[in-house]
């Protein structure tokens, strides 16, 4: 199986991640932050090491700003439900994932919190910022934006959008699910308020891990209250970060694996990895763009404007039929809507969805060549293209 579904979850992981997970079961099986015995404290030290490495990767001054979550959706819900209040308005891009849209829809129904969208213009950051700026309202408390579309791979101008939000007194939340890892995202320097990401995508950690980075996490109402291992006679949730937002036992095994994924990236030439990924995608784009039976939706992928995520369709076929066929041919891709209907509305692909190819750091030139060869001849296999 050649794996091109890295936008959903990266595979494979670096060997050291699996080794660390195994070691976690053997050596760090205690509950961190609960006991005073050596294994508990040593486990807490390993968890803290991951906070330190995450802080290093995102250039965050204080590891206590790093909050462990189950995934990016959990992190986004923590911010949206912990920050917004009745009467607030939220401005989001027109390419957001359901992990943002659904909580906002629920908040709207429950508390009347309003949200509206601003358009992303592929490759035109100035226009994107202009459209964002002119839609900010007096009661806009938060601007949220996906850093790169999980469907079309288009990057958004996060730093400038953050500045725009701040100019009008709003906070800024960045969904970095598709960019965290080899993309440079200096949290403090960009003056971000909140960054959410998954641990199991570009950070090459296990599933069940995610990160919220919060400039001022104490100001968020916790999504869950409960045991923190401290101040147990006090009925109030502790205010100290990150425990304020981390009730209950954290996923130590996952976090220890995530720590290795992040360490792997910190010890790699991330710029070279990003360059390699985009060059593989450029090869795919060039090959597919020549084929009359293939439909592409975005511009030629470049490192400044795109991440290596490409949506395409075989003309006349539903995307799920094509990805099912590709599965039979030995390629793992995702079809459908990728949990982002607004992105499909924007690109008029609501009827068919799209086949999504996403490249990871371990994909090779030979793999993408094989993939293009199969797509080149796919229309000759009409009889196989059925559900």
């Amino acid at each position, binding site marked *: 199986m050649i794996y091109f579904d890295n936008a959903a979850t990266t595979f494979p992981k670096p060997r050291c991640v699996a080794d660390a997970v195994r070691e976690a079961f053997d050596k760090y099986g205690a509950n961190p932050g609960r006991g*005073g015995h050596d294994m508990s404290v040593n486990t807490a030290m390993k968890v803290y090491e991951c906070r330190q490495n995450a802080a290093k990767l995102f250039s965050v001054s204080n590891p206590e700003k790093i909050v462990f979550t189950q995934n990016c959706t959990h992190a986004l819900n923590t911010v949206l439900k912990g920050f917004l209040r009745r009467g607030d308005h939220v401005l989001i891009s027109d390419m957001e994932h359901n992990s943002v849209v659904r909580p906002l829809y629920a908040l709207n129904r429950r508390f009347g919190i309003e949200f509206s969208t601003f358009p992303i213009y592929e490759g035109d950051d100035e226009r994107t910022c202009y459209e964002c700026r002119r839609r900010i309202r007096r009661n806009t408390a938060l601007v949220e934006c996906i850093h790169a579309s999980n469907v079309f791979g288009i990057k958004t101008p996060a730093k400038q959008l953050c500045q725009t939000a701040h100019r009008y007194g709003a906070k800024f939340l960045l969904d970095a699910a598709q960019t965290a890892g080899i993309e440079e995202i200096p949290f403090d320097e960009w003056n971000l308020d909140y960054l959410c990401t998954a641990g199991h995508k570009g950070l090459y950690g296990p599933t069940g891990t995610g990160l919220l980075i919060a400039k001022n996490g104490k100001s968020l109402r916790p999504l869950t209250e409960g045991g923190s291992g401290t101040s147990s006679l006090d009925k109030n949730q502790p*205010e*100290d970060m990150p425990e304020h937002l981390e009730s209950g036992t954290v996923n130590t095994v996952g976090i220890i694996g995530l720590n290795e994924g992040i360490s792997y990236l910190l010890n790699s030439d991330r710029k070279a990895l990003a360059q390699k990924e985009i060059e593989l995608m450029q090869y795919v784009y060039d090959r597919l763009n020549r084929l009359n039976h293939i439909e592409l939706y975005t511009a030629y992928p470049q490192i400044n404007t795109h991440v290596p995520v490409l949506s395409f369709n075989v003309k006349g076929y539903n995307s799920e039929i094509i990805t099912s066929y590709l599965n039979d041919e030995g390629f793992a891709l995702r079809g459908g809507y990728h949990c982002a209907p607004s992105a499909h509305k924007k690109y008029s692909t609501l009827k068919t969805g799209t086949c999504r190819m996403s490249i990871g750091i371990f994909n090779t030139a030979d793999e993408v060549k094989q993939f293009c060869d199969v797509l080149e001849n796919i229309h000759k296999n009409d009889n196989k293209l059925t559900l």
Partner: protein
Amino acid sequence: MDKVTIIAVGSITNAIRAQKILDKYNIRSFIQRVFVHIPNRGCGYCLKINKNGDEAVEIIKKANIRVLEVVEELSDK
């Protein structure tokens, strides 16, 4: 008899961070659970330092780590 200082902080994360900062100042500390030193709070973590803790407390506070309580005791060791 030597002096022992117990510095209670808000969480295990605070305690580890504080310990790492104190390491840079060559102040050796030990992370442990609070025992009877801090009544009415329940479970928690503290740093134990085998000497006067004034300098350590100042360093920890400067790093924006909330110090909940400082208890000085005499050790019979």
